[in-house]
């Protein structure tokens, strides 16, 4: 069984450390290894705390977003070896805290691509903390929100009610696939954060409505609704799209009706693609394909026309 990994990201001062510290205090958290860039305020007690120096490796392909975190892959492999050898306490989960300005994409790419890491670890969810008082803070925090499966709006006790409502609306527009919850001093139920949101089909909640959403730091989200789509045509189309516009497409997540009993769950973070999951059944009565795109310069109608054209060729 793979060890689940939770990635906690969020801008400087947005409450990542407080969130993790509170979670680790809870008796139901189990044994957790925590990987951080800076040792400091996290209370560890019976948990395992490891520090890494951020070291990125640019792949020979030169694909800029496919930078790997060599330090993290080394650390995760080392943890496995040491756990097997009994040199470190047993742990059943890993929490990785990023730096405030970090782009979480290389970490996701590392977890999905390193041959050893992806065979022993599984990305459970990406959690982003958002400062409930100051809100989003530049392109780094916009990207962190786009990549997230769960959003924790911190400092709920001191945020103005109107301001928080605006922030929640802003986050819903930016990433309609991520569920958000407000918290004070990091008080969040662990099961809400650690329920496998990255791979859970029930997690895609588009009740906030389809169509284009307003610009947010030049990043917008849109939802594509289609009927049945040929899987081969989709794979071809998406790889071509990500080659052409991968720098601008921060996230793709959704269901695809490929004609089977259940849909295929698609989840991409820029060029990092989670292994597609063929589900046995649909989570609801809606049988349409529905894909959320988050990025810059997105036009849902152009995306839909293009994918439809590829699909038509596959069926002709």
């Amino acid at each position: 069984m793979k060890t689940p990994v939770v990635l906690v990201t969020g801008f400087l001062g947005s409450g990542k450390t407080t969130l993790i510290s509170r979670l680790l205090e809870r008796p139901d958290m189990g044994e957790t290894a925590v990987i951080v860039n800076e040792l400091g305020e996290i209370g560890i007690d019976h948990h395992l705390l490891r520090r890494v120096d951020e070291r990125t490796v640019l792949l020979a392909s030169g694909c800029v977003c496919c930078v790997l975190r060599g330090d993290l892959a080394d650390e995760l492999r080392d943890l496995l070896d040491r756990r097997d050898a009994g040199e470190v306490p047993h742990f059943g989960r890993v929490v990785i805290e990023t730096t405030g300005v970090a782009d979480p994409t290389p970490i996701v790419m590392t977890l999905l691509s390193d041959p050893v890491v992806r065979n022993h670890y599984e990305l459970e969810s990406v959690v982003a903390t958002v400062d409930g008082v100051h809100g989003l803070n530049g392109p780094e925090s916009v990207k962190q929100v786009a990549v997230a499966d769960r959003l924790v709006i911190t400092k709920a006790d001191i945020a103005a009610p109107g301001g928080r409502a605006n922030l929640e609306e802003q986050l819903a527009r930016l990433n309609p696939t991520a569920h958000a919850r407000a918290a004070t001093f990091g008080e969040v139920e662990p099961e809400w954060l650690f329920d496998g949101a990255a791979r859970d089909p029930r997690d895609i909640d588009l009740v906030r409505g389809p169509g284009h959403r307003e610009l947010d730091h030049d990043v917008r989200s849109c939802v594509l609704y289609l009927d049945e789509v040929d899987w081969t045509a989709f794979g071809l189309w998406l790889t071509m799209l990500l080659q052409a516009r991968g720098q601008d497409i921060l996230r793709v997540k959704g269901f695809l009706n490929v004609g089977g009993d259940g849909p295929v769950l698609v989840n991409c973070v820029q060029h990092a693609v989670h292994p597609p999951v063929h589900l046995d059944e649909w989570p609801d009565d809606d049988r349409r394909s529905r894909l959320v795109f988050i990025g810059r310069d997105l036009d849902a109608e152009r995306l839909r026309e293009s994918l439809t054209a590829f699909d038509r060729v596959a069926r002709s």
Partner: protein
Amino acid sequence: MCALCGVILNQHWAEQDGGRRARAFRAALLDRVLGHFGLSLHDWAGSVYVLRDRKGASVVVQDIGAVWSEAERLLGRPLDPLDAALVAELSR
């Protein structure tokens, strides 16, 4: 896994449906799309693809992820699936 590079992968995510028929179908689709740009693609022995331009230049490509970057290299320009002319031709 990287949608593009295909590096570090045993098998590209878009090619996990396996089987020779699926691979042949995929190669035919790729050839159809690439044809719009003056390129052709053939499956070679079910293991790699061979990508060619009209001047006779060819390149061996490992998987679907690398097809687009190699095609761009041959053409010297990006290939955009949202290109209106491509969409119009595929829709005919």
